[in-house]
Every structure is written in structure tokens, then in C-alpha cells.
């Protein structure tokens, strides 16, 4: 293979953010006319290496060559000039501009006098959508579009650039099955023209159908690059999962003591998702929700917490039918949600640990409108001790704490409301591995102390470590209800905890992919 035959050659790329190494000497090579899948779990470094390629991040070390020419300037403009086009997950669209204006942003069509010609842009945008065989109105304002239409706009923006290298980061998450099919037909045409396509997806079935080769990253390192013919789905999953579960595997999983039924959902549907959910949650039990982004896990959490409305069905708490219309109703019924986006929905970063901890119970701590400072401090100190929050003191700003300790503050804030049911949405996102196992240990302690817990996580090893039962969701529905033990592989020795967890993770991953396949058959 000569240098000029490679479309992209990245060698020895390292990148760290603060103290965290996101990429460690990763090499990555893509040929013209191939669809190259880039795979890895959450935090494996996929997004980082793509952002390095695209000029958003500057690598700490390593070299990039595009079509044999070294790329020395690391800006989005320079990468684009080198022939790289990328779709971001809805990150590069301006909500206030129209579809056509977004597609041709910074490359506007001009009329004879040098002025921007939006009519021409709209015509050319319509041509691109016609070529993809989909319909999106080029005159529509992007902010008014649904997720699928936005994604098609992102894709149109990327392919309108006549790039030599096209990067598609999870292009199919919000697309209908038929639109994915049309996208694939189009990608095959581009491929035939010699365009190099880098394709990122969590859907193994898609990868198997479209990709020629795959590169797998794990924990910021390169694991393997191989033709798809040498990578059956099981092998891919094995490489993606690896042994990264280490550290979680030593969390002790005591036997859960199931008590009375706390929460019951009967055929509950939300606005779009979730759809027709029935489940029961017992005291002392941790129920996990597994599935890909957009599978309806978070929507289900928000419906139970009163943030999104219940459109159909019935919610019963401790046997009584409750009507949850506002978050306040849910809190009063004993439900607390630790939300997904810690920084915006969970904490007020500039406020002290104490003021964050008491935020949800200010009324209870107040007499005639004044907060009882001693009661607030006592409560905070008790929570700091109970949850083992590492902080220099209750008066320090939450922003000075590490991610894991910030999350404990959020959990402490909701525990202060004394809920029976605690819902945790991605409680370990952006937290280092040591703190992760601590959070999970904490969750298990809370369950043992008599709470019923619903936990959402995209990291399967965490769900497997924390949960007693796991629901597999896809497109807003529950496809499987699995007890944790059902995922054990009896052929692995019981004392090899790390290996057992890894085997269970592979089984769960396969269940998730199965749920996707079922969905496609029923849609098709």
C-alpha cells in the first residue's frame, strides 16, 4: 500500500483532556472507496479521534495525512479544505436558519453580483434530497424540524461538500428504516466514485451490511482493524467490551431482598415514547433499563417523574393509582429523578454543597419563609457522611468537586426528599472508573436500605453490576425482561468475576441487537 493510496492516515494520535487520556497513540487508516466502520463503547475515543480529524481538537501528539498530504493546521476550515466532510449528531446545524441556508453555510451560492442567492441554494438542496430519495423542505427553519429531518439535513450538509472523505457519526439514530436503506444505496454510489467513508454506529446489523472494514477502539486505544468478513458480530462485541469492566467486577452483589411492590405501570404510553409499558418495581430491587440512544429509556423516566405527560395507561404507587401531572406530584408520591444532564439539570455549579443539597426540601426546612440554617447544615453534613462525598466542606462550591462527588450531591439532594422510588438516569456519565464503582456500590446500599431503584445506563457493565433485573428497550417498547442471573454464562468459572461480567455483557449486547432486529422486521 503506497502513501498516496490512503485517503486518511492518522499515526500515533494522543489527546488528553485535563488529566484524562481520551486517545493514546491511536493509528487509523482509511482507503479510498471503502466504508470503514469505527466502533467502540462509550468513552472509547471514537468522537475524539473524529474531532481531531475534523480539526475541532488539536492532537497532543501524532500526525495526520489526507490523501498523502500532511495536515498541519488543526482547524475545521483546514480539514474541510483538505476534503474532509463530517456530520455531527445535530451539532453543526443553526436552529434559526433554513435547511438550505444550513446546508450551504460558509459555501453560499452567489448570484452574478456576488450576493447570496438563497433560491439557488434551495434548488440545489432539493436536488440533494432528491438524489437521496427523501423529502425535506429546503425552506423550512431547522428549529421547527423533527429529529429525523434534522439528521437528513446534517447528512445533506456533509455530502454536499463533494468531499474525498465523508465521516458519518451515528447517521441513522433518528432515521426511519426506509431512510437508512436509501442512505445505504447512496453511500454505495459514493463508494464507487472513490470516496472514503468513515461510519460510526452502535448498530452492529447496520455495520455488517454497509462496512468493508472496521477499526475498534477501547479506552482510547486501538484494538483491531480487520475486514468485516473476519469480524462476526460476536467477535466485534468481544473486542468492544474487552476487559474494561475491571474495577466494576469487584463490586459485591449481595442477594437482593425483595419487599412489597412499590411501583406498577400498566400499559403506560407517553407522547411519542414510551409505548405501552407495563412493569413492576419492588422495594429493595434495582431495575435496569438497557437500550440504545433514543430507545425511550429517558422518556420513560421522565414520564414517571412527571416531566412528560402520561397519555395512556395507569401508574400505581404502593397499590394506589396516582395521577402524576407535574414533577411536584411525583415528588409528593415519593418518586425522585436524578436526571441525565448533571451539569444543567442536576446541580447549580456555582452554589455551595449545602445549598444544592437542601434545594428540593427548602420548604420543609423553612419557618415563616426563612431557611433554618442549622437544620440545613445538619442535613448536609449527614448526607456528606452517608454518601461519603469528598469535599473540603459544605460551604465549597459544587463546581470544585469531582464529577463523581457532584453526582453524589445530586443523589443526596433527592434522598433528602425521602423518596421510596429513586430513578437514576445515566448516573455515571463522565465519571472516572473508580468513582463509578463507588456510585454503584452506593446504589446497591440504597436498595438494601429499602428503596426501589430504576437505573438507566449506556454502559452495560454497570447495569449488570448494579441491577437485579434488566428491561431491554427499543423504539419506546420493552422487548425483554431479564433477571440478572439469566445473563450469566455458566461455562465461565464463578470466581473469575471480571470474565463473568464480560460474558454477561456480551449476552446483554446481543439481546439489545436482537431487539433492534425485531423492531425492523415489524416496521418493514
Amino acid at each position: 500500500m503506497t502513501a498516496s493510496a490512503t485517503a486518511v492516515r492518522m499515526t500515533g494520535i494522543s489527546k488528553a483532556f485535563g488529566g484524562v487520556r481520551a486517545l493514546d497513540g491511536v493509528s487509523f487508516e482509511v482507503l479510498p472507496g471503502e466504508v470503514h466502520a469505527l466502533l467502540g463503547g462509550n468513552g472509547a475515543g471514537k468522537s475524539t479521534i473524529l474531532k481531531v480529524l475534523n480539526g475541532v481538537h488539536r492532537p497532543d501528539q501524532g500526525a495526520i495525512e489526507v490523501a498523502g498530504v500532511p495536515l498541519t493546521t488543526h482547524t475545521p476550515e483546514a480539514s474541510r479544505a483538505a476534503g474532509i466532510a463530517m456530520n455531527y449528531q445535530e451539532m453543526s446545524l443553526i436552529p434559526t436558519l433554513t435547511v438550505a441556508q444550513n446546508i450551504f453555510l460558509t459555501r453560499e451560492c452567489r448570484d452574478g453580483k456576488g450576493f447570496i442567492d438563497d433560491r439557488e441554494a434551495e434548488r440545489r438542496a432539493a436536488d440533494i434530497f432528491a438524489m437521496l430519495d427523501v423529502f425535506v423542505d429546503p425552506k423550512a427553519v431547522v428549529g421547527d424540524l423533527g429529529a429525523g429531518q434534522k439528521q437528513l439535513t446534517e447528512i445533506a450538509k456533509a455530502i454536499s461538500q463533494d468531499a474525498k472523505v465523508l465521516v458519518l457519526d451515528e447517521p441513522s439514530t433518528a432515521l426511519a428504516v426506509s431512510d437508512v436503506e436509501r442512505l445505504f444505496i447512496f453511500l454505495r454510489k459514493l463508494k464507487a466514485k472513490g470516496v472514503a467513508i468513515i461510519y460510526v454506529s452502535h448498530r452492529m446489523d447496520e455495520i455488517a451490511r454497509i462496512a468493508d472494514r472496521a477499526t475498534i477502539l477501547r479506552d482510547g486505544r486501538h484494538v483491531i482493524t480487520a475486514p468485516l468478513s473476519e469480524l462476526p458480530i460476536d467477535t466485534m462485541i468481544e473486542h468492544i467490551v474487552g476487559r474494561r469492566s475491571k474495577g466494576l467486577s469487584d463490586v459485591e452483589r449481595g442477594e437482593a431482598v425483595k419487599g412489597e411492590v412499590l411501583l406498577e405501570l400498566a400499559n403506560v404510553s407517553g407522547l411519542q415514547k414510551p409505548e405501552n409499558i407495563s412493569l413492576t418495581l419492588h422495594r429493595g430491587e434495582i431495575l435496569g433499563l438497557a437500550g440504545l440512544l433514543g430507545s425511550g429509556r429517558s422518556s420513560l423516566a421522565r414520564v414517571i417523574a412527571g416531566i412528560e405527560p402520561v397519555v395512556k395507561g395507569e401508574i400505581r404507587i404502593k397499590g394506589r393509582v396516582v395521577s402524576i401531572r407535574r414533577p411536584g406530584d411525583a415528588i409528593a408520591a415519593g418518586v425522585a429523578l436524578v436526571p441525565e444532564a448533571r451539569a444543567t439539570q442536576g446541580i447549580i455549579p456555582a452554589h455551595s454543597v449545602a445549598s444544592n443539597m437542601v434545594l428540593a426540601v427548602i420548604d420543609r426546612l423553612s419557618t415563616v419563609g426563612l431557611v433554618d440554617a442549622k437544620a440545613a447544615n445538619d442535613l448536609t453534613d449527614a448526607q456528606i457522611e452517608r454518601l461519603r462525598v469528598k469535599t473540603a466542606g459544605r460551604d465549597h462550591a459544587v463546581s470544585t468537586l469531582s464529577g463523581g462527588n457532584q453526582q453524589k450531591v445530586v443523589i443526596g439532594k433527592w434522598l433528602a426528599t425521602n423518596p421510596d422510588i429513586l430513578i437514576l438516569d445515566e448516573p455515571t456519565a463522565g465519571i472516572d472508573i473508580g468513582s463509578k464503582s463507588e456510585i454503584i456500590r452506593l446504589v446497591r446500599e440504597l436498595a438494601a436500605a429499602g428503596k426501589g431503584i430504576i437505573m438507566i445506563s449506556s454502559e452495560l457493565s454497570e447495569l449488570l453490576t448494579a441491577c437485579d433485573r434488566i428491561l431491554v428497550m427499543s423504539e419506546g417498547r420493552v422487548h425483554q425482561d431479564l433477571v440478572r442471573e439469566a445473563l450469566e454464562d455458566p461455562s465461565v468459572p464463578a470466581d473469575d468475576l471480571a470474565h463473568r461480567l464480560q460474558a454477561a455483557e456480551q449476552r446483554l449486547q446481543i439481546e439489545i441487537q436482537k431487539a433492534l432486529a425485531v423492531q425492523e422486521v415489524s416496521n418493514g
Partner: protein
Amino acid sequence: MANAFFANWRQNIIYIGFVAVFLVFAVTLADKGFLNPNNLLNIVRQTAMIAVMAIAMTFVLSAGEIDLSVGAVAGLSTVTVAMAIAAGGPIVGVGAGIATGLAVGMFNGWLTTRIGIPSFLTTLAMMGIAKGVAMWISATAAVPILSPGYSWLFGGGNLGPVPVLLFWMAVLGGIGHIALRRSGFGRRVLATGGGETAAHYSGIDTKAIKFKVLVISSLAAALAGMLYAGRLQSGRFQLGEGDELSVIAAAVLGGTSLFGGKGTVIGTIVGALMIGLINNGLILMGLEFSQQLIARGGIIILAVALSQKRS
């Protein structure tokens, strides 16, 4: 076409409101000379400086920033221009005005984009600094301008019956409209204010855009100061005082978003004219100044409230 206009009536409320207010005044104030051409041209004369600053403010707001220093910079520029004319003649005076705008604008832009102070604070501080400098160098006294040519071109003159100020407003409005709607720069301004991260990922240098709109705003404020100075044949630090609020109100009335990403220069000019129209009508009605303030505030709140999208 007409249907589309009324279907989006909230978006076009400024044009409907302008016509409505004009008609009401035309009927109720007919006997007080409202429709007299001279009165109508006076509205233009009183509005032109606000309009000039508001055209530039449309760019600043569209980029997601704000400039509170425009009124004070206009006042400072009246003083520097008047002093420079006294020292070296009208050409030096014009140069001094442009230099004042450039200096303040670059300083605002530098503080906002390089040091990272929000433009709200940068320009709030600059408001005081500009006023202080103007008071200091003029020793708080008015500086007379004794150049008839300068005064004619910058605000005092008429071409036939038409005030020169109308030409300034029309020419700058035309340039501003085309720049925002049809130029690459305008599109980048709207993109920066509409979604800064997305604009950056799309290869737009958002800091450079913010720097430029703040420079343009100060230059426009300096020009407005030159027009004030020419019209009143003197420079004084009080000129332009408080204009920043009318300028922002004109842009927002016209349909420009305070949160960035959405702006219209034509709407802004009509917004400025609407404010002038209301001021004029209220004076003709014989309201006291205190009553004018209250009525004006009420009308602006009503117009902006009607233009809000309901969710």
C-alpha cells in the same frame, strides 16, 4: 403573498402597528398639523441618529451580543469631532469621529472576544468611560462648530425639501439590509448568534464575527454623534445620552431577537420611525413629558408582547 403576510402577522406586527399608529394619528391629530410635510420630515430628522445606530445594533443583537455604549460613544464623538474641527478643519474632524468609533469598538471587541468579558458588561463599563472622557476633554462645556459645510453634510442640510439626514438613513439602511440578507458576512453573523457551537463546527470564526459587529456598532455610534454635532452645530457630552435604550427598542420592535440568530434591518428602521412617530404624536396631543414617557413605554410593551411567539 398578502395571505402569507397576515398568516405571519406576529412576525410582521411592526409594519401593521406602524400603519395603524400612523392612521390613528392622521385622523385624531389632523387639525394639529400631523400630516403637514414639515412635521413628517421632522420625525425623520429626530429619528435618523437612532436609526443609524439601530441598523448596526441589529448586527450586534443578531450575533448574540449587545452594545450598551452607543449613546455615550455618540456623545463622545460629538465632542472629539467639534474639537478637531476647531483645531484642523472639517476633514480632520471627520477623521477624529471615525477614529473615536474605531478605537472604542476595537477596545469593546478585544475585551469581549479575547479577555472574555460578556459584551453586556464591557459596553456597560464603556458607557461610563466614554461619557467621562467626553466631559473631561470638553470640561463639560459645549464646543461650537463653525463649519457650515460640515453642518450641511452631517445632519443640518436639506436637498430641496428633503433633509440630508434622510439620505444617510436610507443609504445606510440599504447597505445594512443587503449586508445582513445577502452577504456572506451577514449570514455568518446570523449563524453565530443562532448557534455558536454549530457555527464554529461549520468553520466560522465566531470570535472574529463578534469583534467585527462591535466595531461596526461603535463606528455607527460615532457617525450618529457626527450627525448630532452637525445638526446642532456643536459638540456636547449630553448628546445621545440614553439613546442606547431607544436603539435597542427600535431593533427589538422591528423583529430582531435579543437572543441572537434573527434580525431584520428594514424592521429596525421601521421600529426607529415608529418610536419617532409615537414621540411626535404624543407631543402634538399636548401630553406632558411625564405622560409621554408612560405612554411610550406602554406602546412598546404592547408591540413587543404582540410579536412574541406563543408556545
